[in-house]
């Protein structure tokens, strides 16, 4: 199966020449889609193992774990680090699964225009009435790092969603 893992590490390539001159290293972000599968280990015991979603069967109803790994190698701290991940098309966000150490997690039900913490997001129904958004209404997830990243920092943010 096709595997598309684009790693855009060269932040430097995208920034203005002036910034490039000052910057050594940067943020590296990597996206991983995985599925939990039951496997028998060497001792014959069943264990749950995470397998890359491209290397196992994924059917409607399957829960997929999306994890975004980041590392930082800049010589000055990176501040105001915000990681965003739209809930992919054909997927439904599973309530309470977004996580990320040292981050403030918010959700959007309007494709990223507005964000709020879980349970405080509203959505406008077809009839124009505003109501509290359910997890299934979430379209985007945002992780805001509470502290600057120093050189050598690494971490990850994650969420789970179900294939429609």
């Amino acid at each position, binding site marked *: *199966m*096709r*595997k*598309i*893992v*684009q*790693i*855009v*590490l060269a*932040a430097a390539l*995208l*920034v203005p020449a002036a*910034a490039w001159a*000052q*910057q050594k290293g*940067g*943020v590296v*972000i*990597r*996206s*991983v*889609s995985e599925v939990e599968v039951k496997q028998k280990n060497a001792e014959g015991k069943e264990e749950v193992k995470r397998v*890359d*979603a*491209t*290397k*196992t*069967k*994924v*059917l*409607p*109803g399957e829960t*997929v774990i*999306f994890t*975004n790994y*980041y590392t930082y190698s*800049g010589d*000055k*701290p*990176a*501040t*105001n*680090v*915000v*990681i*965003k*991940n*739209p809930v*992919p*098309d*054909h*997927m439904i966000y599973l309530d309470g699964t977004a996580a990320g150490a040292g981050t403030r997690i918010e959700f959007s039900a309007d494709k990223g225009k507005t964000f709020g913490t879980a349970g405080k997001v509203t959505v406008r129904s077809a009839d124009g009435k505003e109501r509290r958004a359910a997890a299934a209404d979430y379209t985007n997830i945002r992780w805001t790092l509470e502290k600057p*990243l120093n050189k050598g920092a690494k971490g990850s943010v994650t969420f789970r969603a179900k*294939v*429609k």
Partner: protein
Amino acid sequence: MKTGKNNFTATCIAAVVLCAALLGTAPDAAAAGTPAGTTIVSTVTVDFNFGVVPQSTLSATSSFVVDRLINVTVTNNSNPSAAPNQLNVPLSFRVTNTGNAAQRYALQPLSRPTNTWTMNNVRIFRDDNSSGTLDAGDALYADAGTFGDLVSDASFTVMIVADTPGAAVNGQTAIYDLAATSVDAGMLAVSVQTAGPDTAGIDTVFIDSAGSAGGDVARDGSHSDAGTFTVASSSEVTMNKTVLVLDPSGGNLPVRGATLRYMITATAAGTGTAQNVVVSDPIPANTAYTAGTLRLNGVPLTDTADLPVPDAGDVGATTPDTVTVRLGDLTSASPAQTIIFEVTIQ
């Protein structure tokens, strides 16, 4: 005299039409899900400041392809009642593609091994107008290609259409399973589940439930449901009795010594078989049976019981002072049965 009068047929057919009509218009509530082959892409972006300088947004993606889930559901719509010799009796089913890819289906009508009789001329038609009955436009099933592909969540109504054997008896039932086996869209080969680990391309996974037919286990790409043909036959036997008086003087006066010649005619009508028809006629009071006069259809019958192998009739042996004639099974095709016997007025 009546045997097994049963007029349910008309009601049952009306119910079938209603059922089929409802199913034909109601959309299926359960969606089969994201189509097989869909690529799902997750895109992450990062914004940050380098020191105080905002940096361009970084992004990364990962993606995977949704595999093919095969699921098919067969549900029985009707359980018809049919008269013996009735042609084109429809047993209706709905076949729904509950998988996430277009499929076609190999269909089989399966008579249960426990059936004591079977329908004749068993065929499968697609009920194109959901009428619940065989109509001129309905397509006869030949192979999985006949009815074409069903997209995800779509369904069609098919009928096992068969003729009721003439010997079928009122109340008898025969159970048939309709089995639908998943076939790859545009092909005639039965779909195969991808064995072992994930492969390049779209893998195939069976998630169908076990069906009603023997051996139709879960996750085999097939599903089945059962329906029942019930024989609803009616049969009515009509008797007609006449008497001819022959007095000793050659006239027709019912005087002492006159002979009364009774003639009983029995005929059967209706769709079924009147089984073991027995005519019993008590000798009238103040008369005496004239020995040796009992005839059935012109053939003399003995008056005795004739054990151990009795003929069709006797006088007084089965029931005292009564003429008994056993006519056996009668149908509307049987000729009229004529019984004649004589008594003398005492």
